[in-house]
């Protein structure tokens, strides 16, 4: 492993430990990340259900695209946060 990667890994480790400790009052890092994931799923599903219920263009397409955007931005956040916190 190169020097830069080594330093980066140590920095990420420290951030992860600090965040894990800070999140203890809210049930710990894993519980917080799971809650965030459930929120993203709920918001995505609500937008998708609204798109199906309205069914009129261009509202349906716009709502469906918002749902996809919410899911994918959320997925990117979750992947990064899980990497840092190792949860």
């Amino acid at each position: 492993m190169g020097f830069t990667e080594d330093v980066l890994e140590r920095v990420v480790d420290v951030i992860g430990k600090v965040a894990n400790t800070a999140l203890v009052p809210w049930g710990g890092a894993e519980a917080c990340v799971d809650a965030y994931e459930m929120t993203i799923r709920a918001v995505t599903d609500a937008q998708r259900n609204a798109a199906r219920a309205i069914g009129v263009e261009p509202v349906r397409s716009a709502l469906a695209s918002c749902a996809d955007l919410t899911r994918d931005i959320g997925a990117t956040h979750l992947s990064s946060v899980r990497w840092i916190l190792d949860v």
Partner: protein
Amino acid sequence: MSTGSGIVTGLDGRTRLYWESRGTGDPVLLIHGLGLSGGAWWRTVEALAPSMRVITFDHRGIGQSKSLTYAYTTEAMADDAISILDDLAIDRVHVYGFSLGGMVAQQVALRHPTRVRSLVLGATHSGGRRAAYPESEVVAFFRRRATMPSREAAWASVPYNYGPRSRAEHVDRIAEDIDRRLRNPFNERAYRAQLLAASLHNCYRRLDRIRAPTLVVHGARDRIIPVANADMIADRVPGAQLKILDDAGHLYPTEEPAVDEAIGSFFAARR
């Protein structure tokens, strides 16, 4: 033998997903890897279709499927797979994902657990900090590959895709694979989007939430996704079985065709 094909249009009105179905019986959904169309499964379809309904599809942006944007996640690709099952009115399926498709299959099992009867994860990894990543030479090749002419790229990838035994003894099979692969035009933007999806994939810590019976298959000579990932996944998924193919590289379905029979038996035992 019953065959069919169709296109599912996404709620956004722009995403279109092409699927094919062959055979009758218990349904199995095959999810393929990076840059390949559903047609890349031809060997496995031949092996499973006599006893199962085999469904393949082109990921968004690949082959006959279209995408609204070129920013993908494995979560989005898993939802695409489920939208195809919804369109076909299939409630539960066996799921077999290979390489990037294996990452998508993990997401299917985690996001839609009631839809998965059993799961086969082939030559894949779980992502995250603990995954074993390939040598930097391999990573550099797959980044460079996006800008190479298709035929040159297909042959240049042979040392990475196949193990030494196949390269020495089964050039004919490798040539067949490449011939099939070149039938679909290569979409550079979709390929890059899939690379991004694979690099963002991170399921390691959640693998213990998978409840479907799982079989992990991997070639011991895999240079693209090191075999250590198979051990990691099998350790993490409750009750998972592990099958390591000693002489095979990444594209083990070409190198060890008998494995399709073993996978068919795994599905048959979980009807």
